[in-house]
């Protein structure tokens, strides 16, 4: 695999030492989402204002009078992180132009979970991206409404059991496949769209930096393992994040001005999805024919992506 040799020697040089999301928060053991968030904040640096949606990351970090945020931070509600972030961007822009604040680049960043992005926050996200605000939106996708108790979202994968898509006798879990919001963002003509996973920290942080450098809207979809919600062992977080990429379920790619590129080539033949599914209680009810259905869906989505990787050309 494409792991970095002597990582522990290089890492201190490659990674920002300062923490902008501090320890002492209330995330679960093995939380992949907070790990992703920590890396995002390191890569963004200090000149940001974060607009956060209601959700796990908000709840674990901001129990008044405590805060884990070392950067300016605002939380208003669940579905409006992008709208709040667009207001922050407009406010900073106007104040800077009128000489009311320092003449300095400060990036507006909106962060939401999958529910706050792909479901209830989709309209607000689409609006903010379409309007062309100079901001980055991060979706921290753990594939269900974890903060309210593991209910299905439209980011929940096919056949996964959640508390509102249970593995019943008649219906075996989530009935539909995952909504592809990264594609919807590409359709907004964003200069930069990427997928990332904290199991690949350097790849993730590189993408965060690229997204921040864009003058205009950018979107990064971060796959974040939730051992609590997925009924998985908390020490398997990094491994699950690697397996989801190696199986091709969640390929790591970026789209720069319409040009698709895999940032991590998955060796062929890809690992079977079963390697990934069998480590999680949410897929425990799947029999071999179900696994075959999941494999077929993953293969189809992967083919679609690879076609774009091979044929897409930059817009400009």
């Amino acid at each position, binding site marked *: 695999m494409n792991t970095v040799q002597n990582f522990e020697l290089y890492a201190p040089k490659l990674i920002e030492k300062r923490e902008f999301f501090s320890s002492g928060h209330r995330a679960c053991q093995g939380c992949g989402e907070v790990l992703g968030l920590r890396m995002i904040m390191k890569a963004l640096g*200090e*000149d*940001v*204002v974060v*607009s956060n949606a209601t959700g796990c990351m*908000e*709840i674990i970090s*901001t*129990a*008044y*009078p*405590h*805060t884990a*945020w*070392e*950067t*300016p*931070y*605002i*939380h*208003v*509600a669940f*579905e*409006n992180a*992008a*709208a*709040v*972030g*667009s*207001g*922050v*961007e*407009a*406010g*900073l*822009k*106007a*104040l800077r*132009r*009128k000489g*009311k*604040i*320092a003449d300095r680049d*400060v990036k507006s960043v909106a962060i939401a979970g999958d529910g706050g992005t792909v479901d209830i926050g989709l*309209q*607000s996200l*689409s*609006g*903010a991206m*379409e*309007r062309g605000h100079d901001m980055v939106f991060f979706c921290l996708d753990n594939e269900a409404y974890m903060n309210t108790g593991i209910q299905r979202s439209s980011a929940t994968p096919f056949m996964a059991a959640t508390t509102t898509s249970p593995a019943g006798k008649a219906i075996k879990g989530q009935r539909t496949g995952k909504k592809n919001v990264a594609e919807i963002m590409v359709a907004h003509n964003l200069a930069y769209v990427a997928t990332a996973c904290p199991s690949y920290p350097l790849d993730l942080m590189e993408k965060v930096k690229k997204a921040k450098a864009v003058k205009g809207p950018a979107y990064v979809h971060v796959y974040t393992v939730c051992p609590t919600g997925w009924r998985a062992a908390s020490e398997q977080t990094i491994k699950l994040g690697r397996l989801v990429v190696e199986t091709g379920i969640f390929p790591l790619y970026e789209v720069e001005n319409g040009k698709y590129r895999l940032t991590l080539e998955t060796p062929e033949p890809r690992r079977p999805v079963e390697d990934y599914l069998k480590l999680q209680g949410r897929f425990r009810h799947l029999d071999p024919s179900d696994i075959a259905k999941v494999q077929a869906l993953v293969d189809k989505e992967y083919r679609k992506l690879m076609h774009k990787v091979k044929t897409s050309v930059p817009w400009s």
Partner: protein
Amino acid sequence: MGKRIGMEVGIAAAEAVGLCNIDVAAVYPITPQSHIAEHLSDIVHDGRIDAEFITVESEHSSISACAGASATGARVYTATSSQGLMYMHEILPIVSAMRLPVVMGNANRAVSGPLNIWNDHTDIMPQRDSGWIVMHAENGQEVIDMTIQSFKIAEHADVMLPTVLNMDGFQLTHMIEPLEFPTQAEVNKFLPDRVPYATLHPDKPMSMGCFNMPEIFTETLKAKDTALINSKKTIVKIWNEWEKQFGRAYKPVETYKTKGADTMILTMGSMGETASVAVDELRKAGKPIGLVKLRLWRPFPLEELRMAIKGCKTLIVMDRAVSFGGAGGPMATEIKSLLFHDKDRPRIVDFIMGLGGRDVTVENFIDMVMRAGKKKDESYEYYGVRE
């Protein structure tokens, strides 16, 4: 002070905002607010003011963008109406709890269903408990003056609360009235730049909108209530400053011919103008009738109302909204409750009328005064309803 010009009130509202050196406006169009949205975008796109105009995809996002922008220290404005205000509802108490001085104009319109685009107060009443300062303008000049005043009130260090200025849809927003605009220099003198208490900036990072555990939530809500109650003092102070500079007086409760009146009509919004004509007619006929007008709905001006209705035996409350299955119209319900312990409180007659743009004429007011005299109890009544 400039000379009087004829202008549509909605356009005038946007012109007034244009005088206030705003930094950000986030507006979504809705009838009958749309002329405010359109004209404000004209002002920005023509470069008459230096501001960001965010053409949001919904009212939910307009109030959310206003919250974000206001948190950076910017002076922000939005305007809406009816369904738009209902769509914002979720965010309104968050804006007031975060003490963000967002200024809003609301072109009052009936709430669906059934769909109706015309005027009443069913949109603002459900927002009553949101912790905002709620004001009502009666005519176009008040819309101009109170829009400018709103920024000073909202941003004042002793207030720091959002404000909503209600202007009746169509019946006020679409009227062409002779209006007087203060000059830019006069507004600059009255309204200095915003001095924010806290801002979102890396120079001094802070977290806004942290959640409250049960141990502190009640305290936060009480603090908001106290801030809203205390804001009245500053509102009155700012209105006095306005009167001193511009000569037009503003009070939380206005009275018209109440001296010696044993019966008084109570209105809120543009209806007061028609009611005053009815009072003139009744006075001419020798009837001791007066008019009381609420300018401030939140914080509720109880002391001022008590003073205004001194000696009143029958108070006729004109409610343009309904609390279904409850005690009647929201204004009468509230006034009854507030005056409950007053020994010499007037009998309160509650008429629900003027819903969804139904015209209420001078004759209707006179008729209601007559009916009120005959009414035995304090139950509410739908006036002019066809059954």
